[in-house]
């Protein structure tokens, strides 16, 4: 299953813990779960991770199929609700990650500590973010001792960013955080960016205070003016100024309830956001629309390790492997980069292609409901050749087909549940339509 439905089920787990616990108490296999039950008691911060698979309930017959079908059904409904048309997304993203490194981060309400957990999730976040936003850049600013501290310059290389947050001892939490100082620092590092890129700030904030040298509302209005989108994940509780920062700049605000929810909140910010058509509340009414531009890019040729060695233009060293600039033929060590000789932006085409499925999503398949429809077409799944059920299933979730058939509206081929999920969540192209 995909991560989306994972988080769905997770939400449910978070909200219905109470109910789940009581059910578990009456469960037949109490001895087996005894240890876990003991841990479930008491305050939520003393509990272990709420795991999404715990929320899956066995039905009377001891089978999980009902629960799994429900998960699938929910995934389908979510897809049907999503807008069908391709939406504009600002794909060349620039993000500054603001990490709270104040003493409040040593709190142990999230395990092992807020600080360690934040570093761990930040690393996963960076890896996944670059995977989905290949042309984006990330910078990192820390908040400690009342000032903003530049931890990593804006960089498009995930390794640089990961390296900057890999050394825990250099980031030890100390003192008070200053939202204003850190935001101003992030803002200045994004001031030179071309107008067609998105500017975002993501704050992970564990404190309930901020020590600012001036009026933070002025910082907020300059962020609105600069079209910077601020998102914040609070680890402690909601602060009015935090919510205001997010609401007025069109970002997302969330308070993490527990470790898993913290991760969900962070990872929700990874997919490219739809481009801002106008700045939310209209505070920046007169601001220029984020302008688009046409960029010239070169797609290089990669030379094998066995190629004759030559001087590279970036380090002036003899190298065998490398890339050739398609315009001037210069030897480059790495892509993406700017050619040092002719200035052409060099990207390998798979870098661009990774984001294309956002542009051309596969239309949702419709569930085949009547047996009349089902018998009219092929007996096997068009993609994986699995034979379809001939007798309708009785207990099915809403929006699910009793015959396990989902029909593409364009090519009129039928697909099984597994392929329906795979095509829409992973493959992003319909096997029937691609002839």
């Amino acid at each position, binding site marked *: 299953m995909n991560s989306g439905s994972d988080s769905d089920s997770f939400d449910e787990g978070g909200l219905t813990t109470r109910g789940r616990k009581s059910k578990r108490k009456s469960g037949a296999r109490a001895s087996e779960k005894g240890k876990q039950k003991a841990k479930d008691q008491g305050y939520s911060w003393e509990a272990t991770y709420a795991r999404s698979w715990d929320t899956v309930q066995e039905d009377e017959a001891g089978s999980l*199929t009902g629960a799994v079908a429900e998960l699938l059904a929910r995934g389908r409904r979510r897809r049907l609700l999503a807008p069908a048309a*391709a939406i*504009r*997304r*600002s*794909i*060349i993203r620039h993000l500054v990650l603001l990490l709270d490194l104040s003493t409040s981060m040593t709190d142990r309400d999230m395990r092992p500590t807020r600080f360690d957990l934040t570093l761990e999730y930040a690393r996963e976040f960076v890896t996944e973010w670059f995977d989905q936003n290949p*042309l984006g850049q990330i910078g990192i600013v820390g908040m400690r001792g009342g000032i903003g501290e530049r931890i990593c310059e804006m960089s498009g290389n995930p390794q640089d960013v990961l390296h900057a947050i890999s050394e825990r001892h250099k980031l030890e939490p100390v003192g008070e955080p200053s939202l204003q100082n850190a935001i101003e620092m992030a803002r200045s590092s994004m001031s030179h960016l071309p107008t*067609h890129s998105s500017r975002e700030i993501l704050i992970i904030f564990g404190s309930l205070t901020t020590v600012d040298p001036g009026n933070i509302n002025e910082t907020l209005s300059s962020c609105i003016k600069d079209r910077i989108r601020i998102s914040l994940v609070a680890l402690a509780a909601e602060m009015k100024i935090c919510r205001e920062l997010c609401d007025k700049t069109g970002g997302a605000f969330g308070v993490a309830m527990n470790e898993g929810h913290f991760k969900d909140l962070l990872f929700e910010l990874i997919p490219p956001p739809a481009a801002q058509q106008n700045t939310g509340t209209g505070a920046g009414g007169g601001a220029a629309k984020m*302008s*688009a*531009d*046409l960029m*010239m*890019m*070169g*797609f290089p*040729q*990669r*030379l*094998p*390790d*066995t*190629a004759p060695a030559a001087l590279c233009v970036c380090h002036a060293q003899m190298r065998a492997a490398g*890339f050739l600039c*398609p*315009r001037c*033929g210069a030897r480059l060590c790495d*892509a993406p980069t700017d050619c040092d000789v002719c200035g*052409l932006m060099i990207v*390998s*085409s*798979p870098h*661009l*292609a*990774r*984001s*294309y*499925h956002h*542009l*051309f999503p596969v239309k949702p398949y419709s569930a085949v409901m009547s047996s009349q429809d089902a018998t009219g077409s092929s007996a096997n*799944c*068009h*993609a*994986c*050749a*699995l034979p379809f059920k001939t007798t309708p299933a009785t207990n099915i979730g809403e929006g699910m087909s009793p015959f396990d058939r989902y029909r593409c509206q364009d090519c009129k081929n039928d697909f*099984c549940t*597994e*392929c329906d999920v*795979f*095509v829409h969540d*992973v*493959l*992003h*192209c*319909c*096997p029937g339509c*691609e*002839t």
Partner: protein
Amino acid sequence: MDGSSHLSLIIDLSPSQWHLSAQSSNPHPLSFQTFLSHVLTFVNSHIASKHENTLAVFGALPGKSSMLYSSLDADSGNGNDPPADANSYRPFKVVNSVVTNNTQKELDLIGGLTEEPPVALVGALTKALCFINRLAHPPSGSLVDEAAASADPRILILSVSPDLAASYIPVMNSIFSAQKLKVTIDVCKVFGEETVFLQQAAHLTGGSYIYLERRDAFLQYLIMSFLPPPSLRHIIAVPRQDKVDFRAACFCHKNIVDIGFVCSVCLSIFCSPVAVCSTCRTKFPMKTLQRLNASRPAIPPANGVSNGSPRPPSARPSTGMSASLR
């Protein structure tokens, strides 16, 4: 390494390309009959290497794709069992007769066409990926056992047709899905020019791309390069081509380009500066267009790629300009 291995074989069944391949004017003519007999020997070796090995064969035909053989269905016995023969190993016999019969059936079906549409390689590739996904998530109560589910899967494409630029995006999507499923894509270019997209597919999934030079030694290439499953390849070195062409296809004319113009909003690629992005309807500033158009004559003709050179702007930019002046 001890586990079984799954092979999804994709055979390019383009009648016109096979006709060209068989012509005696070629340095090493290879007819479809010889090719098929080599392929059958190869798949026999694959099933013989390990009892649990699974196999699926897909055909990419002009305008359609179909599954020619699957070891899941074959076990259940679907009527076209060959007569028993004391002198041959039954599993070989079954594979050979099913693949041959189905190939013949499919080729007969397209026999009546006067014009040959391009082969549906992407269709076959996406079906192979769906099939592997199904192996990884066996539906309850199916015949798939644990061994098949844990197999390290790979796809081998035997290609004879040139790149189809229109399928650039689906090919790319398939490559990324293969990466997610941890599927290795191997490519053997049996006939015709090098294909940029399949080179990228092999490179990005850690497979090998081999351009067949001595086509009379086809079977030898298959056995030596493509028989070892990916898990064995750190022990048995297989030849691979490291030179990879990272060119892309433009969205407007489906040309394969090495220098493109990219929309900053949606990253669509165009072969010449356009005023409006055809994908996301973004209007580009006049200044940029003038600058790019001015810099274009400086571009030397793309190195040896005839279809890669930008075309002069046609009627499209003028309509776009009026739109952007509005």
